[in-house]
């Protein structure tokens, strides 16, 4: 049947530079490892992206995939792994800790042959500290915990119970605690408390430096694309990597 190709075929084919699923060996994930989205083939820059923690990961996903496309088009290789316990991971969220995430991101960097790392927000706490690169609006662990503890306190008070962030933090450090629907183990909460980003060779980038006229996607309670931010971030990374 020599008919013209149905139009849906066009949207089927990923462009050669587009992100594709890729498996990587992750400690604790068994023989099959974990999935990442990656542009695997590329030039001098091989970038590992460490996403933000908790819901900020979901809110920035669209922007990060757009960033990967830009970098792919520019000839660079990029990998966006899920943190263990998040996204498509086979691991339990409740079993995670900052140390587990650090070990996982180090394994991802090694498997991918990463030359650089870009972390976002709380992701800076678990990014490989030995790689050069960038940290976009990096956060300490207390800043990661604050809105989560406040939301938990508000929820409890709405049901007429006494609750405050300090008591909830102590409870979480001892016994674990469900925060914003995430079942957090005691190790994760204790690890976040007081944690500071440790990337020595990584430059902190403030959102304002990028001049993208868009709200911070991680602050949006209703996720939305951030095309200008993706473009500005890609341009900044390509420019810095050349220098």
């Amino acid at each position, binding site marked *: 049947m020599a008919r013209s190709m149905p139009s849906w075929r066009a949207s089927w084919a990923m462009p050669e530079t587009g992100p594709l699923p890729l498996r990587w060996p992750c400690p604790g994930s068994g023989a099959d490892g974990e999935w990442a989205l990656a542009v695997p083939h590329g030039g001098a820059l091989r970038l590992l992206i460490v996403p933000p923690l908790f819901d900020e990961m979901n809110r920035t996903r669209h922007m990060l995939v757009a960033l990967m496309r830009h970098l792919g088009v520019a000839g660079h290789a990029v990998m966006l792994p899920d943190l263990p316990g998040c996204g498509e991971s086979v691991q339990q969220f409740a079993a995670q800790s900052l140390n587990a995430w650090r070990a996982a991101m180090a394994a991802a960097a090694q498997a991918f042959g990463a030359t650089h790392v870009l972390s976002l927000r709380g992701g800076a706490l678990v990014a490989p500290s030995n790689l050069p690169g960038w940290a976009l609006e990096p956060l300490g662990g207390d800043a990661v915990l604050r809105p989560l503890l*406040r939301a938990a306190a*508000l*929820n409890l008070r*709405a049901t007429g119970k006494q609750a*405050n962030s300090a008591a909830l933090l102590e409870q979480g450090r001892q016994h674990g605690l469900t925060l914003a629907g995430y079942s957090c183990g005691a190790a994760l909460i204790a690890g976040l408390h007081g944690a500071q980003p440790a990337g020595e060779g990584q430059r902190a980038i403030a959102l304002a430096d990028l001049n993208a006229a868009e*709200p911070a996607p991680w*602050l949006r*309670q*209703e996720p939305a694309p951030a095309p200008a931010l993706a473009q500005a971030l890609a341009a900044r990374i390509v420019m810095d990597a050349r220098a």
Partner: protein
Amino acid sequence: MSQITSASLDADLRALLADVLGLTAARVAGFTEQTPLFGALPELDSMAVAGLFTALEDRFGFILEEDEIDGDLLETYGALHAFVARKLGHA
């Protein structure tokens, strides 16, 4: 952080609500002092309230005390505006 005037506070606060809650500019422009927020906007659940508090701290450079973290603060647009003005020493 640049000085926030009373006049710009209203515009900044509306823009922040639009950004964080994904509301249209037209919708936030229509807010009056009496427009109810918490409990009236489906976008504003407890996680969004906590996120909004964080965004307020980021934008206006103050820290909220534990006893200020309360849904009542977001009962109406006017209540929120008055609270932020008070924190900034405008009222």
